[in-house]
């Protein structure tokens, strides 16, 4: 059973969002990291770039498989987890903590309404 914190929002593409004021911290869920297996590389945008909800913002490589990452909200990237360059395994070890990926200053916080709560995400992963 994967861990689904109740204080986060979730996309159907298995990203989580932690809202801090007008900012959204984004990563992939425990379910996602478990399904992907050992993460060996994370390709993330640079701070200062913009991301669009529903569009790719980077990629994650598990053992010989590269996958797209989708932005759950739109906005400007204000912080990137640079430590993932040297220790991508943090995404496996602590997906909601040190395995976070980017922090975005949101253009439109109402986009959060399109995301799932923990219960909804639990149901989504059970489909």
């Amino acid at each position, binding site marked *: 059973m994967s861990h689904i914190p109740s204080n986060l929002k979730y996309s*159907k593409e298995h990203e989580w969002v932690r809202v801090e004021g007008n900012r959204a911290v984004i990563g992939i869920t425990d379910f996602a990291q478990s*399904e992907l297996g050992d993460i060996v590389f994370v390709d993330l945008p640079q701070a200062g770039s913009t991301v669009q909800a529903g569009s790719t913002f980077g990629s994650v*490589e598990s053992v010989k498989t*590269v996958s797209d990452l989708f932005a759950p909200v739109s906005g400007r990237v204000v912080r990137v987890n640079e430590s993932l360059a040297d220790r991508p395994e943090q995404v496996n070890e602590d997906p909601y903590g040190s395995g976070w990926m980017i922090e975005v200053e949101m253009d439109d916080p109402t986009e959060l309404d399109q995301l799932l709560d923990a219960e909804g995400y639990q149901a*989504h992963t059970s489909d």
Partner: protein
Amino acid sequence: MSSLTDLLGAEVLAVAWLDDLRHPQDNVDLDVRLGGEVARGLRPPLARVWRAAPEPGLAVSLRDLATAQAQAAADRLRGEGWLVVVRNTGGTAVPQGDGVLHFSLILPRTRRSGSTDAYYRLLTEVLIAWLAGYGVEAATGPLPGSYCDGQYNVVVGGRKLIGTAQSWRGGLAGMASGHPGYILAHACIMIDVDLVSGTRLINRFYAEAGLPDRVRAEASVCLRDLVPDDVLGAQAGSHGGAAFVPPVSARTPRWRADAAAAGLLAAAAAYFAARGIRTAAAAGAG
């Protein structure tokens, strides 16, 4: 367990030899362009046979080039005339040049898409069936010390013949996504390559990139060393390909890659047809 039609996303598959030898990076990126068309339903799922561009060098992954030191190492190799192309699948560096053949399954992502393992099994089953046609017995498994090592290497006699990798676009691998996308399951086949030179170049790249990966030439093998030229030529000829075996002096890496490509094209079509999948020639890459 996913059915074959679940994995293909259709009951029809185009099987085609599509390559662009004059533009090496475009040749690699064609998988991405075709994948976008498959994802949007503009073309059916595709099994693509393609040759590497003739210039010797390497295909590296985005991960290989993640640091400035690695990019500088790649630039140095390019400056010396080596080809360095970047592929969109995972893994590590593989030799490129005349005598290297590629095989890509480019399939739409669906709500019933299976696991990455299921696509690796499909890819390698097609390749193992192709090799069986030459009388070569192959299996899958890891082979430490081989280039781009992984669980789904295709191995013959304890040495690696084929490396494999995947890319999932439109969401995370093996998981449901509301976005259209495609799955690229890719194989790189050493037909007739100087493995000593190729692995030396890989090791030089990683040393200059400051990365720990190292490979050994003796861990790998080429099809040239497993299949006599007359068998390679006869198989190609029986499928309408290179219908004759040229004099020894003309049996170049390119000739062997062409003959192998013709054989693989036919073997892939036969594999899917035998399992109830309608196969068709693909439209050009346009």
